[in-house]
């Protein structure tokens, strides 16, 4: 039982760490920002997740304490990672002004066009 726990914890740690590494590696390898953006926002999420689950299992099994507050970290990461990516993408759109973008039906993307009804002048 203990061995199984150890095995589980160890594999979770290894999996998490591997994904963390892959994410960072992708960020190094991929050629342009938009591609690079895929690497960390995905891989590292699982990377941290793996480590967190490992931690939960570890403290449950080895200490006998129910440690589930690690879930909170995941909750926050899940809440924030899309925002981060969204902003990075918008910042990239704003600085690069790519002309190959598909355009939506009536209005442009909000990075380039103000929301209708917004009373911002100029």
């Amino acid at each position: 039982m203990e061995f199984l726990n150890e095995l589980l914890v160890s594999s979770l740690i290894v999996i998490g760490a591997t994904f963390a590494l892959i994410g960072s590696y992708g960020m190094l390898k991929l050629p342009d920002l938009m591609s690079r953006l895929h690497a960390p926002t995905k891989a590292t999420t699982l990377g941290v997740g793996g480590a967190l689950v490992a931690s939960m299992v570890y403290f449950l099994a080895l200490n006998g304490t129910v440690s589930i507050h690690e879930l909170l970290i995941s909750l926050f990461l899940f809440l924030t990672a899309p925002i981060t990516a969204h902003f990075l993408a918008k910042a990239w759109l704003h600085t690069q002004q790519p002309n190959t973008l598909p355009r939506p039906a009536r209005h442009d993307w909000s990075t380039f066009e103000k929301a209708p009804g917004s009373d911002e002048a100029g």
Partner: protein
Amino acid sequence: MIDYAILYAYGAISLGLLFNLWRLFAGPSTVDRILAVDTMVINVIALIIVYGIQMGSTVYFEAALLLAMFGFVSTVAYCKFILRGNIIE
């Protein structure tokens, strides 16, 4: 066994951090640098959790929690700065 796993994790995450550091230097754009730092924060969270496992202590949990909660705030702030200049309008 866990010790080896942890050692592996340290190596992997550290390598990842070095990659991030490289991206921080190389850029080329500021957005790339922000991305590098954002990823770094995630890796650091992972590192702290693994360190907590190694030390068998939950005393480091809050550090990871705060990084998770607020790591993104600076990233968003940097991006907002690039987008609008004024981050609180």
